[in-house]
């Protein structure tokens, strides 16, 4: 599933075209299989899903309800309904997996192994692209940026950032040196991919997620210090490399064209307009402008002098030909775009423009910014479902973070490490949210990995004291 979704954001249009439909089929099949398995297990044990999962599920369901009913005020009701539907499928899939694995640590390990292996396969596919189709594996321009199997340099970087806490945790719990080396090699491949992609946000997110796992999961003070120091060096070094390679911004010089001098001509009486008011035009103040007897363009032909072609819409703000002042180039122009997004949010702050409409509402008009969305999930959520929707997502994250940290004190062995991996993904996910619009977009390469990991954390984080009991019930001989 991870690979199919990565292909949906693949490096060639034909790959994207083929995978964009396939990924939904795969999602449906995996969702159906996970749901059937969860129901089978619940029927066999005659038990409800774990209370912790039900609590988290209630928050998730409340968010989904807000997303679905935002159809009522959405700028594109159909789009909103479709996007809310696809997120519902992903939440059902993640909840079913969490329910099935809540009482089965080994199964939860396998889920995390699957997610981590999927990300490593995407990393390996990127290497193949680099070897066999070098020109397709990078994006040129001022800075060489590796994109590997992904559509752009950030695609693989955010998947790697979400998966690296899982990979590090799996390496820490590996039973043999060979397995540990294999997971570490996979992790190094993904770290190298992020560094080569020059994605500062990806590096920051991967660094934050893996640091949590290393700081709390590595045993022994010396090993822990060495692991943390190595991670800080690698990720800080990657960010420093990007900063060093970034070309300095070109100095801004406004080239705003002055207005033409006025033409001293006699006033020309307007000719009677042949063009009539549009039959569907509404009366009232706006119509006044249109209804007023106005000259046809021909009557102004002698007066209109030299005209200019406007720049592209996506380059208007900060364009030297249109702007008196430059816009900031910080964070690849994101800060300027975010300021514009905040203006939009200010128009509809409580409930937003409708779930799934970020791409429709947010228009890139910034000269130094490239992106169809705000490239920030927090702003994206505010834009789509307002403060209410963002508060619900915050509540989900806060519940998992607080519960997860509490659970670490209660849990032992694999259960503790799995909770730590979930927390690592949570931290990485929060960091990725700062640089990407993704958490609510099921088609995004990292979304499934993040939500499946977070739902798997929920039964443990929101009901930690029940975990040892569950483990004893599931495996009386004990699971290490």
């Amino acid at each position: 599933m991870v690979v199919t979704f990565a292909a949906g954001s693949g490096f060639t249009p034909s790959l994207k075209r083929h995978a964009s439909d396939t990924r939904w089929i795969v999602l449906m099949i995996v969702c159906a299989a996970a749901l059937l398995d969860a129901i089978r297990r619940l029927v066999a044990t005659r038990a409800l899903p774990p209370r912790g999962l039900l609590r988290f599920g209630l928050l998730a369901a409340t968010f989904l309800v807000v997303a679905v009913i935002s159809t009522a005020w959405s700028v594109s009701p159909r789009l909103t309904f479709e996007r809310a539907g696809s997120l519902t499928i992903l939440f059902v899939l993640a909840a079913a997996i969490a329910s099935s694995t809540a009482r089965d640590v080994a199964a939860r390990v396998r889920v995390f192994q699957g997610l981590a292996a999927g990300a490593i396969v995407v990393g390996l596919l990127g290497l193949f692209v680099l070897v066999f189709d070098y020109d397709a594996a990078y994006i040129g321009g001022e800075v060489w940026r590796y994109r590997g199997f992904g559509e752009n340099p950030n695609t693989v970087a955010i998947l790697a950032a979400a998966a690296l806490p899982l990979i590090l945790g799996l390496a820490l719990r590996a039973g043999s040196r060979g397995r540990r080396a294999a997971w570490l090699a996979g992790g190094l491949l993904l770290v190298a991919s992020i560094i080569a992609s020059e994605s500062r946000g990806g590096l920051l997110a991967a660094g934050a997620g893996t640091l949590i796992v290393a700081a709390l999961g590595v045993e022994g003070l010396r090993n822990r210090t060495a692991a943390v120091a190595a991670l800080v060096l690698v990720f800080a070094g990657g960010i420093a490399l990007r900063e060093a390679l970034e070309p300095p911004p070109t100095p801004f010089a406004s080239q705003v064209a002055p207005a033409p001098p006025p033409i001293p001509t006699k006033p020309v009486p307007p000719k009677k307009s042949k063009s009539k008011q549009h039959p569907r035009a509404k009366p009232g103040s706006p119509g006044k402008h249109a209804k007023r007897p106005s000259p046809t363009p021909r009557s102004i032909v002698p007066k209109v002098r030299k005209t200019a072609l406007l720049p592209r819409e996506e380059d208007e703000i900060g364009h030297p030909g249109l702007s008196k002042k430059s816009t900031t180039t910080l964070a690849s122009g994101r800060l300027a775009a975010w300021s514009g997004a905040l203006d939009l949010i200010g128009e509809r702050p409580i409930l937003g423009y409708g779930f799934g409409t970020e791409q429709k509402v947010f228009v890139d008009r910034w000269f130094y910014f490239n992106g169809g969305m705000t490239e920030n999930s927090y702003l994206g959520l505010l834009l789509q479902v307002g403060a209410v929707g963002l508060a619900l997502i915050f509540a989900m994250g806060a519940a998992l973070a607080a519960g997860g940290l509490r659970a670490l004190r209660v849990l032992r062995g694999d259960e503790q490490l799995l909770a730590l991996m979930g927390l690592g993904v949570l931290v990485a996910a929060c960091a990725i949210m700062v640089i990407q619009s993704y958490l609510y977009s099921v088609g995004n390469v990292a979304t499934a990995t993040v939500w499946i990991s977070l739902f798997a954390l929920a039964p443990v984080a929101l009901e930690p004291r029940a975990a040892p009991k569950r483990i004893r019930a599931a495996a009386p001989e004990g699971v290490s």
Partner: protein
Amino acid sequence: MRRRVVTVAIAALAALALLALLVAVGRWEKRRAAHEELAGMRTVLAAIGGNIVSPSLSGYRYGPPDCLAYHDRVMLLALQLCFDSEGRLVQAVDRRPDQPRYYSLEYEPSLSTIRFNRTTIDELLQLAASRTG
């Protein structure tokens, strides 16, 4: 048992009331935002002289949305109006301040109540294109 049913019924009613409230607030926000954007568009339109057929026509861009620009006394492309295929004004830009001001209903053109004759818009676009220097 009966007490439980009553509790569930009250909870369901409260949930329904909350949903209705959300819908009401969402729609109110939508109307208010559209009203503010339209008010901004009218100020730009007024700055041009209230009519898109103006001798201050100074720029253009084929879209969608199709845009026309107008000069003031200082800037060539000081003001800008953009229209959808039905002639609805969906965006207005005022570049006279240091930071440009955008008023837009591009995301849902049907909210715009300011409409112009599409033929006139096309003629103005052609005129502006013919005078590009």
